[in-house]
């Protein structure tokens, strides 16, 4: 059976989401396993979002924001960087495979990088198989 991972993407409006759009206008082709939520800034991300995503059954979570120093709101992504680094450590501590949560800084002009990251992350999730540690089973 071919396992197709379901990945939750969270992308910041100004950089990563725009970069993902650029991958589209360039007509790059990449696996379509990522379903993206748009937020205005990566700093909006509450660690509870990541945990919730895994509870909902996401096999992987991919967060994208502006490169540190280039945040549309100045310093937002610097807080995101630290917060999400701690979140990753907590997830690992709680038994989640570290590779299932990835944070990547992708700018608005990096369409190609977006496609490559998604391709790579999807490949990694396929190898890991379905996520079961946090997924809430429905009766």
């Amino acid at each position, binding site marked *: 059976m071919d396992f197709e991972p379901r990945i939750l993407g969270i992308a910041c409006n100004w950089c990563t989401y725009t970069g993902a759009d650029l991958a589209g206008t360039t007509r790059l082709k990449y696996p379509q396993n990522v379903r*993206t939520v748009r937020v205005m800034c990566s*700093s909006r991300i509450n660690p509870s979002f990541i945990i919730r*995503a895994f509870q909902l059954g996401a096999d992987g979570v991919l967060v994208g924001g502006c490169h540190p*120093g280039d945040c549309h709101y100045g310093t*937002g992504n610097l807080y995101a960087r630290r917060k999400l680094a701690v979140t990753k450590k907590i997830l690992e501590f709680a038994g989640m495979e570290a590779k299932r949560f990835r944070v990547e800084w992708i700018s*608005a002009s990096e369409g190609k990088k977006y496609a490559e990251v998604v391709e790579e992350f999807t490949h990694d999730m396929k190898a890991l198989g379905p996520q079961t540690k946090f997924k809430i089973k429905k009766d």
Partner: protein
Amino acid sequence: MSRIGVFVCHCGLNIAKTVRVSELAEFARTLPDVVVAEDYKFMCSTPGQELIQEDIRKHNLDRVIVAACSPLMHERTFRKVIENAGLNQYLLSIVNVREQDSWVTEDEDVATSKAKALINGAVYRARLLQPLVSRFIDVNPNVMVVGGGIAGIQAALELADTGKKVYLVERSPTIGGHMAQFDKTFPTLDCSACILTPKMDAVLQNSNIELLTYCEVEEVKGFVGNFDIKIRQKARYVDHDKCNACLACTEKCPGRGVSEWDEGLVRRKSIYIPFPQAVPQKPVIDRESCTFFKKGKCRLCEKVCEQAAIDFEQKDTFREVKVGAVIMATGYDLMDTKPLVQYGYGKFPGVHHALELERLFNSAGPTSGKVVMRDGKTEPQSIAILHCIGSRDKNNYEYCSRVCCMYSLKFAHLLKEKTHGDVYQLYIDMRAPGKGYEEFYNRLVEEDVKFIRGKAARVTDKTDNPDHAGKLIVEVEDTLTSQFVTIPVDMVVLSPAMKPRQDAKDMARLFNLSTDKYGFFMERHPKLAPLSTMTDGVFIAGACQSPKDIPDSVSQGMGAAAEALTIVVKDKMELEAATAVVNSAACCGCQNCVRVCPYGAPMFNYEKNISEINEALCKGCGLCAASCPASAIITRHFTNDQVMAEMEGLMEI
């Protein structure tokens, strides 16, 4: 219970080719709370928009979802559509099934099932969307133009003519930019100074333009309609209010600095004006080379100045300026060709780059308009012009710099006029796209210029042929005859790539702009919005956006002025409605939000011991909400519930 309408756009075949659009609409109909789902060829067209509005009325919709192109493309469009049908514009959700679905896969099943998941997510979120009220603030009517080259000058003049006050900030001692360095301009062979200096003078004379030369932007605060910009006035050591431009000081000065204006070909005085028609025509002292600043002696300029305008005590001063919009027109630099060692720039004195040649041609230049070798007297008997040095080059700049073919043709023409030498033109393609450009090329073809179709491989001084001793040998493959050719010449002229300014990335950071991989400022949309940026209120014009010629720079200056006017012509502007608000009951008074906000929007109320957010300052980024340990901050339109509901919908399928 919501009444949701889902509208799926085909976008011609852009979406419909890969996503099964009617199946998508059918799927949407099955979702709880969706009362109507349509699909249509072009949802953003008039009939498409009317379809949505009709359905809002017919079915009493209170939430609308449009599955189409990216929200970055048409969210604004559809917000207006639903507003005109009586719905608050924030009761809309856009689903991106084009840029992030149909365009990035060829598999119909994959594309359609992803689109279903995305729509499901949008429906989950739409149920929780709330109407938001727009607020308005006053708009500052002034505009700042950063960069006093031809694009910036044009923008400033257009705005000033509409009655707006313009601050024209220029880093060097004079306005004019690179265009003022040129001799003649293609294809008309107009004298550059002759067409530019009237505009420079117009800037000086226009009472609506405050000319701030020798100034740099230091800090930018605020937002569209209300920018607060700190400018550094660099110390000139000359009081421009007292100076009457007699220039006696420049005659006596013993100090010498490298002339930036003459591209380093000669030295200039330490107290100087860059060129005779400089605006303002008042000198500055170059501290690095000034004898007094270096050794503590001299002060000759001070002695001869009858206006007592020299002031060695001057310091850099700062000034705060408030404007409603900004135009970036900071121009370009030519690539440094020294690293391209195969061409020998910097090693062989006979190798020049394009701007150096312009200075040689220019009658006000270091050789009074004579084309001579670096010894200052020998006329070159043969000159080779090399196209595409650094441009169209994967190892340097992949793009074409757009103007070099034309100015290289111009050089060939002027060289035939000013010297009796042989002129060789080594090109890959001949790019002459503008008005009168191809005709200019045809003219050159008749002028006994030797065209060789091939990019020069190397410039060397080594030769086995005794007749070629002392010459520079240009090696090239003539691709039309498929022969390897060596050309002995006296002088080589390189046409280097046009690239962004060295500090373009720093400027971008100041103004919160994105740059592309080369450092050019990124436009909002390369076709439909080339002059605006993702930062509202900051516009771009000229070569800082991408390489271009003078007509295009002028057009963009005018265009950017119009763009800036759309902001400053209004008295008030609509504020971001998706702002953050503190739930005072839950706030624990930790002031985390106050500490982290880049805009100072949250403020602590010491009487109530809670934080309150100033909605005029809030930009809606959400950092405060994610930093609140009490989960007391709600970011409208992106609340925790809304985001997590969307996630639930996305993961359900």
